[in-house]
């Protein structure tokens, strides 16, 4: 009997599955309240909260932010924002934020 070797797949390849589609509520960060403690980044089960420069339009567009949302960000600042392609809307970040700077908002698609 021929024994077939196990299956090999590409590393990090779940990136092709955009789990953001699971979401009902979306975390919205109040960047004025944020003290950049990075607890949201640490606790996020998806690992999809990132530190981004607010003028880095290319990255923000890749994280599924609209030009209007990008225009609303504070100018030339490091901001903590979720990658909306993957955020499942679990609200752990909103719950753990020590400054309550993250609000879960019902998302209409």
């Amino acid at each position, binding site marked *: 009997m021929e024994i077939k070797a*196990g*299956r090999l*797949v*590409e*590393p*990090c*390849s*779940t*990136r*092709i*599955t*955009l*789990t953001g589609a*699971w*979401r009902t509520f979306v975390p919205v960060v109040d960047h004025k309240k944020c003290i950049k403690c*990075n607890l949201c*980044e*640490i*606790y*996020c*089960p*998806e*690992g*999809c909260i*990132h*530190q981004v420069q607010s003028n880095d339009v290319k990255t923000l567009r890749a994280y599924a932010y609209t030009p209007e949302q990008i225009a609303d960000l504070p100018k030339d600042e490091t901001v903590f924002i979720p*990658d909306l*392609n*993957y955020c*499942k*809307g*679990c*609200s*752990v970040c*909103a*719950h*753990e934020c020590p400054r309550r700077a993250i609000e*879960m908002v019902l998302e209409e698609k």
Partner: protein
Amino acid sequence: MEKSLLAPGHRACAGCAMPTTIKLVLDAAGPNTIVVSPTGCLEVTTTPFPESAWCVPWIHSLFENAAAVASGVEVMLKRRCKDANVIVIGGDGSTLDIGMGSNSGMFERGHKVLYVCYDNEAYMNTGVQRSGSTPFCANTTTTPSGKISLGNPRPKKDMPAIAVAHRVPYVATASVAYPVDLRRKVKKALQVSGPSYIQVNAPCITGWTFDAGTMVEIARLAVETGLWPLVEWENGVVGQVKKVTRPKPVDEYLKLQGRYRHLFKMPDGGEMLKQIQAIADANIAKYRLVD
């Protein structure tokens, strides 16, 4: 943590503690790591064929033999004079029940492998059946609460003590709510020349049934009530212990979870709450959690 070694797009439930645990373990271990996993939520959610969320080499074989596979990996690395961290990450079902024999073998043979158990206290992947790690009075599908039962009748198996009895040089308990502590313990375990074992309390939103977002709060309450003491054993001796300044009553931890809801409704529930409080008090006394 800009570049996590666990990619997003994995299929774990929203609000699951397990991916956060893996993220922290990989963050502490770094990219020069080989991970072996037994069957469980972790295997199913991170590697839906033909995808993988792992950015480090990762192997799955069976439910019961992750420790044996890791032993082989470690021996082969030694043979080829290569150096890498070998880590097993598995759930409580495979660690405490199904893979117990191969874990025992790995510990006893002294392979330089770190075994991390993310403990969600039941077989969550198959539908919340009781495991050896299910705590006293928890409601699961195989220990349902009702007229003749108040949930799981047996206390939790003390796996760290079993590891200590194998003379594992470094054993620790950790919690997803204490990320700095968890990272430090992983780094310390990887410095040890023999096997090491870390059991991480990882709340399960589906099996424990709690509100979305309270995952970290629940894990923190487990520590603050004394039900999940954060302890290290170095060469069998209790080392650093996370002190709890003012232990909270266990009710605060239990009432947030659907799996204990019956204790607050049924007439005999109060007596059970006292017994659970006694478990916490015993931990507090045993590990001197309060100064």
